[in-house]
């Protein structure tokens, strides 16, 4: 693969208004999903009806922006019909690609809509040349979204070995685990991130305030964190909870801390490595987030491509726990 391709900026949208904000702020492509279990942000009040998707695709295409549809959950055994229907709908509406994780969904697109691009979701957790080659060979996958566990030099090495495009996350939620395999939320809420599309659904979340100003986050029947009056907070996900364990005194972030990925300082390295697309996480976020983050990265990517020093906007206010990290892109020891 050649270095210095101009990477596409792939931006999130949970509502049509957010999609329009992303298009207006300079997104090369927007990714979004339907109001059902076929996408991994299946939260109540979020996502697109078929009518909204149709209008939104038209708006995006008029603005020269592609629309990638997230069908990135795993159908329960024998229940792939809904996923097929959403593929049919996406093809009919003129989507530019479907982002999929499950091989049955990928096979359906390959057989039914050979011209519809397949992007392999991060949920498939494919990071080795062998795994990626398998998806390319068997299903004609055109792009793989890499798990957030690889360093830039690993990505550079991988790009030399695989016959497809690569997309990396550059901003947003930093809940890693083995992507697409985490079952923590099932344990507490009975719903599956990977099959129902909802980690920590809001109906299972409660915030309780105490007189001293501290706040407890309750998920299902479990308290997963308590923030002091002046402490910044994070998402109500188990991976970002604080627990008591024998090895430490007091509450301890046993999995991950409330922190967001911000790879803005790594952009030149990623571009030099030959990454084809940069992904911003956050379909559950507001259009204010979309507008600010997309505009900031649009400016940064454009100035790097023009050979200028990128101006990196301060995005820390939008990060989880108001903390940011370059994550594994910089070092495997990000904690």
């Amino acid at each position, binding site marked *: 693969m050649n270095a210095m391709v101009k990477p596409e900026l792939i931006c999130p949208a949970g509502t049509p208004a957010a999609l329009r904000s992303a298009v207006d702020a300079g997104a090369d492509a927007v990714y979004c999903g339907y109001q059902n279990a076929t996408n991994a942000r299946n939260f109540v*009040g*979020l996502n697109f009806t078929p009518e909204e998707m149709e209008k939104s695709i038209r708006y995006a295409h008029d603005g020269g922006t592609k629309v990638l549809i997230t069908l990135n959950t795993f159908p329960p055994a024998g229940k792939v019909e809904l996923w097929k229907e959403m593929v049919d709908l996406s093809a009919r509406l003129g989507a530019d690609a479907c982002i999929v994780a499950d091989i049955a969904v990928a096979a359906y697109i390959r057989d039914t809509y050979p011209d519809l691009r397949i992007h392999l979701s991060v949920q498939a957790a494919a990071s080795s040349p062998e795994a990626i080659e398998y998806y390319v060979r068997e299903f004609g996958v055109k792009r793989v979204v890499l798990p957030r566990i690889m360093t830039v030099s690993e990505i550079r090495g991988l790009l030399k070995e695989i016959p497809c495009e690569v997309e990396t996350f550059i901003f947003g939620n930093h809940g890693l685990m083995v992507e697409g395999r985490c079952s923590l939320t099932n344990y507490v809420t009975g719903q599956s991130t990977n099959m129902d599309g909802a980690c920590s659904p809001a*109906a299972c*979340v409660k915030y309780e*305030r105490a007189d001293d100003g501290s706040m407890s986050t309750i998920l299902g029947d479990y308290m997963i964190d308590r923030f002091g009056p002046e402490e910044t907070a*994070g998402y109500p996900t188990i991976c970002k909870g604080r627990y008591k364990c024998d090895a430490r005194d007091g509450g301890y972030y046993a999995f991950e801390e409330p922190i967001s990925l911000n790879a803005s300082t790594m952009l030149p390295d990623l571009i030099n490595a030959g990454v084809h697309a940069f992904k911003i996480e956050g379909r559950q976020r507001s259009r204010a987030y979309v507008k600010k983050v997309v505009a900031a990265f649009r400016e940064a990517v454009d100035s790097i491509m023009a050979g200028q020093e990128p101006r990196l906007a301060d995005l820390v206010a*939008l990060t989880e726990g108001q903390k940011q990290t370059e994550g594994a892109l910089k070092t495997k020891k990000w904690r």
Partner: protein
Amino acid sequence: MTSEPQSSRLGGGPGGFPFAPPLPLFLLNPILKRIVHRIAVQNPDMFDRLGPHRHAYFLIDPVDIPFMLYLRPDPEALDFRAVGRRNPPPHAARISGKFLDLLTLMDTEQDGDALFFSRDLIVTGDTEAVVCLRNALDDVDDPIAESVADMFGPPGRAALNALRRAAENAQKRKGAK
């Protein structure tokens, strides 16, 4: 239904807020009613995002002004009025924050999650109802703050611009800390 203690971090109480209208609530309520009906007419689709929570009552608590707002975003039975702080009426969820922060949320200039992370926004009660309300308000065509300002013509727009400047300055002060 829920009620909770006042936020200690967010302060609370009137606190000499410069934009607090010196109006008795009974004068304010017809204006609020007009506002909510106008927004509902302009954005009929927004209610779909509320799903089952359109019948819920929300208590919106700008902690630095002397009253709270009571909202039921049900297109068949819209209700939006100011209520006193002493005995908050029954509600499914309460959203508390500084007036200017709540305003910038309505102006789609602020990200609700960011305010939550910084603890400037406090949510108690039915979290799903609040998330649905947030998504519904976020998906309107024109920011709600702008639509409200437009209802009052040039003075409304001037007031919104003044509030935006105040919010921007407050933001800068926060960033400088």
